[in-house]
Structure formats: structure tokens, C-alpha cells
């Protein structure tokens, strides 16, 4: 693993060294998440508590941000090293209890960009990319309790840190640029073959009798804007 990391770093440095142009960019956007395994856990939680006036939200809406350093090799090809962050909380706000789940994914990855269209084409502003990311999924489960209960006001129920990775496909549309700056709109699809929240079902629902899986695949979809500083 260490060797692989070293080789990748060398490759990135080598590629970056050969680049004609560099850019530092910042992404921000909306994130849509779909993980059937986590949906099932929350569905069971809601089904088992029909007395709650508000259901716990699914882990589905969130925000995404990324910081990338990219290097343009030629007119068609570019590469990037990026740090990607996702946060997709779920809150169940009831009168006497508020439970919130806070999953955050911190991943590092490599991306390869391709601009297939000529400068004369009407699609010339489109660019596609594919990337591989790996890192940490860190989840906190918090609970606010009504004051008449014995427990602390807000108790952090548990924390889980698990390794995760993803494959990402992205499409950018550059709608503004100067020699120093550029702004793109992006759409990004991600596939996460293995996401896990340790003991999620047991801790959240309070039992492991239903044999629900604490891990599964996840799909992500995001929309947003990127601003790049070119040098």
C-alpha cells in the first residue's frame, strides 16, 4: 500500500512537472446521496416508531466541496489531485427528542480531464473527467434530550470512522473565463462500492434483531460551481 502511494505520488509529480499550465480550484455544490443499506436502517427506525410526529430524514441531501490542484498537459488532457469533502446529515426533530446523524466523507483522489470538442464546436465549453478517490467516512450520531430526562442535554451517542473509496464521473461546463480565472458548472456522479457506518443499525435502532446491514454501496450525484485560479 505504501509502495503504491509512493508510486502514485511520483507519477503525479512527474505529470505536474510536464504540465503547460496549472490551476487551483475550489468546488462547492449540492449533494444527493443514495445508499439502499442506510435507507433501510432509517426506514426501519421510522417504521418502529410510529408515534413520532416527525420522521427521521433519509441520508440523502447534503453539501459537497473540493479543493483541487490541476495541471493542463495539452488542449485536450488535464489531470488533478483533489481533496473532496461531503456532508449529508439527517435530522429527526421531535418535540421531546432530536436525533441527528452526521456523516462526513473526506477523500483524496486523482482525476483525469478530457476535452473532446474542438474550439469551433458548439460544445467546446464541455469537459469530462473520471477520478478515483479514497479516504474516511466519519459519522457522528447526536441526540438532544428533553430537559426532564436525566441525561446530558446533548449526548454524542457514537462515532464511527471507516475507510471508503469511490469512482467519480464528472461533466463541466465552462461559462466564464479570463486568462487568470475560470468558472465552471459541474455535474458529478459517484459510485462508492463500500460504505460502512460501524454498528449503525444497532446503535440507531437500538437492536440488532433485524439483521440489517451496516454497510453497502452508495451513489452520489452533485451539482455545483467551480472557480479556478490559473497560473
Amino acid at each position: 500500500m505504501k509502495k503504491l502511494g509512493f508510486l502514485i505520488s511520483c507519477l503525479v509529480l512527474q505529470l505536474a512537472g510536464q504540465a503547460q499550465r496549472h490551476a487551483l480550484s475550489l468546488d462547492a455544490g449540492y449533494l444527493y446521496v443514495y445508499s439502499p443499506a442506510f435507507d433501510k436502517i432509517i426506514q426501519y427506525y421510522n417504521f418502529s416508531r410510529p408515534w413520532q410526529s416527525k420522521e427521521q430524514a433519509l441520508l440523502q441531501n447534503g453539501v459537497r466541496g473540493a479543493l483541487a490542484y490541476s495541471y493542463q498537459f495539452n488542449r485536450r488532457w488535464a489531470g488533478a489531485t483533489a481533496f473532496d469533502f461531503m456532508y449529508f446529515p439527517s435530522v429527526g426533530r421531535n418535540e421531546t427528542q432530536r436525533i441527528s446523524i452526521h456523516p462526513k466523507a473526506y477523500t483524496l483522489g486523482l482525476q483525469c480531464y478530457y476535452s473532446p470538442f474542438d474550439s469551433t464546436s458548439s460544445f467546446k465549453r464541455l469537459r469530462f473527467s473520471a477520478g478515483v478517490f479514497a479516504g474516511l467516512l466519519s459519522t457522528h450520531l447526536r441526540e438532544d434530550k428533553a430537559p426532564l430526562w436525566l441525561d446530558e442535554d446533548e449526548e454524542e451517542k457514537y462515532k464511527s470512522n471507516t475507510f471508503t473509496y469511490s469512482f467519480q464521473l464528472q461533466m463541466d461546463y465552462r461559462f466564464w473565463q479570463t486568462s487568470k480565472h475560470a468558472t465552471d458548472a459541474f455535474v458529478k456522479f459517484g459510485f462508492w462500492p463500500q460504505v460502512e457506518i460501524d454498528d449503525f443499525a444497532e446503535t440507531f435502532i437500538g437492536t440488532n434483531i433485524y439483521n440489517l446491514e451496516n454497510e453497502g454501496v452508495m451513489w452520489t450525484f452533485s451539482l455545483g460551481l467551480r472557480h479556478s485560479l490559473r497560473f
Partner: protein
Amino acid sequence: MKRRDFLLTSTALFLSPVFLTACRKRNLNSKNFKSTKVIVIGAGAAGMYCAQLLHKAGCEVIILEAGAQIGGRIRKLEGFSDFPIELGAEEIHGERSAYYNLVKSTNTAIADGDTKDFIYLDNALQDLEVVANDADVKAAEAFLDTLEEGNYKGGDVDAEGYISANGFSTRVRPYLNARIGNEHGTSNDRISLQGVNIENELWTAGNTNALLKGGAHIDVLQKACADVWAKVQLNAVVNQINYAGGEVEVKTTANQTFTAAKVVVTVPIPLLKTNSLGFNPSLPSAKSEAIQKIGMGAGMKVILKFSQRFWDASTGSIFGTGLVPEFWSTGTGRSANNNCLTAFVHGKNAEQLVAMGNAAMLSKILSELDAMFGNAVATSSLTDHYIMNWQNETFVKGTYSYPSVGEGNAREVLAAPLDNKLYFAGEATHTKGHFASIHGAMETGLRAVKEILESLEK
């Protein structure tokens, strides 16, 4: 790309999350199983919760209860003191369960948990914390911790044998009986240490034990199951379940016949042991054998009311050395004028006390308190008492199931549905360590609903 196309595409992209969000269901109630009729046998925590969830899912539910009241092993005694006395389930075990959430959502207050426990040691009543450094108490506590943490490695043997073979002093054996056998619904000669260890290992509900202050468990259950409460048919004693045909036919001792596609059986284990439900065809031999392996037996609560409180105001439990392994102060944290003690006895001690008859049993219990507190204070200040002997309850016949030696995977075998028609719930069918509790019973009810809905979706 034309400007119009671009605008259309981007609008579609921006709206797609809204569409996807709307498509995804937060709840399992995605389908309505209107045409499905389900009979639930038993109106305890498992049966009522199961019925409520089935009702929510759209099923037509019939609830048959043999007794004259709803609740099963959740029952309150009112008018005895200035707070409702729990005759069955009392503590909320753990803070991570649907039941705990339910109690919270009903805004029922919880009693302050700061109490002191006492032990009768060397003919003197002592604060357990004060004698914590006594070598024998220390050894006993260390052993209890080992069990609690799921680290016991001594095999599937009964607690009494293990404790005497491992040299625990006779000074603390009654205490160990109170904390292991008695707490788990029996006595140390009948309980499997391995079973207790597995239960602790599997336990996921958390470690807080709380008491209700502003109400009783039955009221909480009623709030949760309000939609089906009035549907319960009381005094409907099921004595035949014919499941050979397409539909299941359920008959009662009053010659009523009910039919349904699915039946959920939630009756306590002793009633299954004696085949009081008259399964036809008989249950498969593996299931019948499993039923026989799960322990449940004698147990009672004797509530004693005195004209004065002669015990420390902060008392939680008092561990004795006689036939009553544990007394607790019934109203600590619940009532300002708390003059009640509960004697909690299981297993062979309970059998011995019951054999004496009620009057002699009462004097024996009082004499044990007199010995601990002196001056015949208990006998002379008793004003009222209530004996709740669960073994005498025709449709329960015991307190709660306990892990017995040789139980193995009996609970899994018992819990498995039969022919997609018969489903088994009730605390004893909990396969993941939460048996003998309210929330555990409810979880088995939900498991049965899950099994039913999954079979209907196929």
C-alpha cells in the same frame, strides 16, 4: 449546444434531486396490505406493538387476549400508594430502544437514578460501596463485571455449581444469587452462565436503568398502540390453531372461530411448553424441543407498605441472605412519601415461599426484614401488602424467560416462522439478548411484522 437546450438540460439536472427525493420513502409503509388479515394472539407488549404496526401497514388485525386485561406482564396496581405500583415490568433497561424513545415521546418523567444499594453481610446491613474493598465482595463484583462485559469463559454450566467450584465465599453467595439468577428470572442453580454472558455480549440497548415517575408502563404502551387498543378481544382463550390449510383457523375455548392468512403467536413460553394453543398439525419436533429448552418459572413481587420508612431515603436495593434475595425501595425517586418495599423473588426461593402459603410467606419475608433492621420494625409497621405471584397467572405462568443450561440456539429455532403462516414473537423469542424486557418483547413484535410484510411483498 443551443442556449435553449442548455437551459433545458440544466433545469432538468437541477430538478432531478427534487424528483429523486420525492420518490424515496422514509418509511417501510410503502404499500398498503389492506386485504391481509392477521390474527395476533396475546395482548402483551409484543402483541400490541405488532398489531399497531400491522395496522399502520394497512393489514386487518384481530387481537385475541386470554386474560381480562391488556398488557400481559405489564400491569399496574393503583390505589396502593400515591404512585402506580408496577406489578410486572418496572425498569426501562437501556436508553437505546424504541421503547425508550416511546417513553420520551409521551413525555413521561423518569425517576432520578441516584440510589444506594445495601448488602446484609456478617449480620449487619452495609452500604455496598462502603464494603467494596472487602475481599469477598470484591471477588463477587469482579465476577459480575466479567459477566457484564461478556468475558466469562467457563462454559455452559449453572451459576451455583460454578460459584461453589470456584471458591466464592458463602458470605457473598446470596448476593451473587440476587445479581445473577434472581435478576434473570430464576435462581443460580438453574441459570446458565454462558447464556447470561451471551446475553450481555449481544446487548445493544445501553446500560441506563430508569424508572417511570410520571406514569405507568401500561399507559405508555396504550399511547403507542392507541389505534388497536379497542380492537382487543379480551377473555378470548385460544386453544386450537389449525394451520394445515390455505388459511389459518384459530379457535377459542368459547367456540369462536377466526380465520386469517397469518397468525402471530406471542404467548409466554410456559404456555407453549404445555401446548395450550393446540397446534394442528403439531409443531415440528425441532421447535417443540427448542421450546422445552427455554427456561421460565416461579417468580413474584410482594409489595409491602409500612407506616414508617425505616430504611435510608436513598435506598435502591437491599440484598438479603434469606429467601428474598433482593428488596427494593419501591418509590425511591417516584414519591416523597415512599413507605413501600418490594420483595423480588425467583426460582427455588420463590417456590419455597409459595409452598408455605400466603400468611406464612408474609411472616417469613417480614422476619427477614426484621433481622436486617432490628426491633421487629417491619412486622410491627406493616400496614398493607400485595402478593403478585406470576406463576399463578393462568396465561403467563412465570415471570420472564431466562437462559438455561443447554439452551443453545433454541430461541432462533422457536422464532423462525412456519409455512409463511405462523409467526412467533414475545420476549422469549428474542434472539439477540434482549429477552425478558419490554423493549425486547416489542422488538420481536416488529420482527414478526417485518417477516409478514416481506412474505407479502414476494
